[in-house]
């Protein structure tokens, strides 16, 4: 049937098929809404699946394997040096992506979510026009819309992506393993990708404008990571600015300004990892009442509703932290709100994990944030040298840190650094959300010998009765 330009009336249009968008669309369909999901890629999953979380974890998994094999030598098990077939690794990563993409398509179909290919733009009077390259445009009249268009890697002026300059998307496609890689930006993206290339054999240098890696992350957690990365990477230059780049026939010369950094450095490849920017420019938001803040994020309330009551915004477009699981949680809230259910996005703890080696993971409030809110908090730290499992793994450099409200013993936040910290965080996140007190954690039996014991031990330490650490002196 030829639809021509006749608008189709639907309950909900979701713009963007990333983790936030598809979670919103699936939930909305389950709640009985006639739902259209607009996605410009040929498959669902967004940046996360295609050029973010998933491929980076596939590569980081291989990087960890290389590290473990190298370190096994200390324990008396030696492997030969790894031989990396970049093309094969690329294809292997792509197979994981394709498989997950097909899974999402199947799940969308089962639910009756109508996935429409193209780019959606708001028009007047509650309409969205979806245009695509090789098909006539389609117009949808919506009762509600959810903007979930995500973000793109931020760029530096004068550093356009090209053969010698990568952004995270380019680096994840593993075009080559450069001999010398300069990573601009010491945030989680730069450190994760730097780790991958270091493991694959690149000589990696990191420059960070601020005076510490992972700006904004608790220093107790960053210190053990920085120590280990210092061994993986050739150089880490903090408080250093990239001032110029010159491309020569065979390499790239960069000029640096910062204490301890050389004035000039020759590298083969440059990776710009200076954060991400929300994609809200070309959505036709001027035809709605939705408002953006100066950084381009769409302003939303607890339901993730914009100043235009018909329109919600979730995920990276709705503000920090730009994390897939936060987007999914928001998507489910917005879908429920669009279906008229009482819903609100009010987590106590949004878990965050940096998948480096060691991993850094945290949720809830660290001391500084608690104090900023006027809460009297007390932190306790259990070094992993007190964990039998960590020592047996040869990784006693980790740390478990719990932040409690001093008076009630209520758990406010959890910080971890060490192998598998990202997986260990789950218990802590649940405990924060449940409003658990130290006695709850201490009274929960933790498996021996696992790294999770350090959480129970930290709670015991707060209560003044640790087992594997000397009792605190009063």
């Amino acid at each position, binding site marked *: 049937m030829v639809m021509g330009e006749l608008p189709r009336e639907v309950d909900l249009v979701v713009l963007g098929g990333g983790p936030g968008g598809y979670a919103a669309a699936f939930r909305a369909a389950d709640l009985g809404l006639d739902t259209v999901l607009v996605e410009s890629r040929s498959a669902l999953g967004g940046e996360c699946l295609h050029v973010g979380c998933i491929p980076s974890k596939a590569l980081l998994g291989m990087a960890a394997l290389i590290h473990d094999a190298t370190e096994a030598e200390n324990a008396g098990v030696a492997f030969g040096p790894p031989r990396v077939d970049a093309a094969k690794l690329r294809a292997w990563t792509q197979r994981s992506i394709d498989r997950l993409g097909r899974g999402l398509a199947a799940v969308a179909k089962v639910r009756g979510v109508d996935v429409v290919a193209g780019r959606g733009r708001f028009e007047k009077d509650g309409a969205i026009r979806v245009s695509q390259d090789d098909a006539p445009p389609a117009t949808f009249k919506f009762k509600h819309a959810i903007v979930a268009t995500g973000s793109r890697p931020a760029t530096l002026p004068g550093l356009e992506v090209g053969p010698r300059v990568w952004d995270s998307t380019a680096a994840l496609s593993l075009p080559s393993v450069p001999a010398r890689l300069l990573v601009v930006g010491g945030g989680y993206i730069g450190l994760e990708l730097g780790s991958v290339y270091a493991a694959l054999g690149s000589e990696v240098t990191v420059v960070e404008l601020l005076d510490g890696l992972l700006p904004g992350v608790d220093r107790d957690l960053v210190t053990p990571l920085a120590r280990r990365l210092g061994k993986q990477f050739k150089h880490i230059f903090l408080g250093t600015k990239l001032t110029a780049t010159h491309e020569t026939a065979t390499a790239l010369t960069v000029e640096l300004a910062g204490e301890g950094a050389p004035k000039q450095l020759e590298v083969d490849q440059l990776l710009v990892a200076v954060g991400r920017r929300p994609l809200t420019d070309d959505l036709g938001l001027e035809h709605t009442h939705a408002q953006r803040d100066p950084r381009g994020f769409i*302003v939303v309330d607890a339901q993730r509703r914009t100043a235009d009551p018909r329109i919600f915004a979730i995920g990276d477009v709705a503000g920090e932290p730009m994390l897939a699981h936060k987007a999914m949680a928001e998507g489910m809230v917005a879908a429920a709100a669009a279906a008229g259910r009482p819903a609100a996005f009010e987590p106590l703890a949004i878990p965050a994990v940096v998948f480096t080696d060691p991993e850094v993971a945290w949720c809830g409030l660290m001391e500084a944030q608690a104090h900023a809110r006027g809460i009297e908090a007390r932190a306790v730290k259990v070094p992993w040298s007190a964990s039998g499992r960590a020592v047996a793994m040869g990784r006693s450099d980790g740390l478990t840190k719990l932040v409690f409200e001093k008076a009630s013993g*209520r758990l406010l936040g959890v910080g971890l650094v060490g192998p598998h910290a990202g997986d260990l965080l789950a218990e802590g996140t649940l405990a924060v*959300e449940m409003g658990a007190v130290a006695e709850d954690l201490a009274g929960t039996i933790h498996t021996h010998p696992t790294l999770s014991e350090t959480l129970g031990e930290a709670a015991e330490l707060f209560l003044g009765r640790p087992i594997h650490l000397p009792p605190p002196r009063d």
Partner: protein
Amino acid sequence: MAKEFKLPDLGEGLTEAEIVSVLVHAGDEITEDQAVLLVETEKAQVELPSPFGGRVATVHVQAGQRVKVGAVLLSFADGPGSTVAASTAPAAAAARTAKPAVTVTPAGAPSTPPTGLPPAATPATRRLARELGVELSHVRGTGPGGRILDEDVHRAASGGRPGAAPAARGDRTSSPSASPAGPAEMGRPLVVPTALPSLPRFEQWGPVEREPLRNIRRRSAEHLALAWAVIPHVTQHDQADITELETMRRRHQKRGAEGSVDLTLTVFLVKAAAIALRAHPRFNASLDHATGELVLKRYYNVGVAVETDQGLVVPVLRGVDGKGIREIAAELATLVARTREGRATLEDLRSGTFTVTNTGALGGTGATPIINYPEVAILGVGRSRPTPVVRDGAIVPRLILPLSLAFDHRVIDGMEAARFSTELVGLLEAPERLFLEG
């Protein structure tokens, strides 16, 4: 500088209004005092006249939007003659000096950055609180470390205090009224809910439609609930023989036809009420809670309940005691028409001291009307019917009008109410008194 028309102070403590329709467009040339917007406040629909003339540059509002006093409604283009700074003085009676501009409230206000310790409650408990409409920051948790438990939320939802047993302990689906009191309930104090329990999901039993309560209906709902909750109502029923009154009314109705003034029964009821109120001042009063005094009003303004498309509205006839029947009839006719067209002014709607609600046109033998707070009495009127009446030992057909006088028992006792009611009946049965004593 470009002139702006802001939502003026509407009086009566009203802080916002809903835009019903915008009567002008950007680019329109308008004249001073031209109606530019139709707005609905909690009290009335009113047309807003523009305080100045000129070309409309931008219309900042649209139908359906709620705006606060001071919000910019229209801006005007700088015209060649825009030196008329003095014309910014509002011309409309309702438009006093506009307060500093307040931005239009967006439906989705940005969430404020959090401070302090967020309430400790599990995600499941928080969801329960959302469903029951309970604000967790107002709930005291009784769990470890002050954690808010499901029971605490149920208790808050039913308005109970800590220590009182929750209505549905540990079972969200059981309704307390559905289960007979078991041994566990024996001896526990009865909880009188002051907050409303949440509604069941009606969709589970069949299709439903939801209709928002708009300003007037919403305001009525709140106002009537307040009156019913605060005032101990007692209703005194009586009957008036209005055979003679009806004969007279019909006679003068015909004669007055050329003047086209409608002599309705309500006109006589209003007049009778005013006379009775003068003789019984406690019915023309308000109770001042703050001082514990009875405020006896020496003016007699009778409100008349009018059904409109937007809901029930009670416009007021002022100074009824000093007005004749024809004058009241003429005023009532225009007042009712204005109200039905949604053009009642705020002045029309306030200052009542007593209310008459006549539903007789639709039938009924009696009702228990709710007093229009802060008044202390209201007269409900049913349908008059030819009725066999025993008079001097013989049965005669008479036209009998049922009257229901609801009064505030804090202020008026039953004997006084009987006297007032008898006075009213006497006035209606001897209609010449309405002229002699009015």
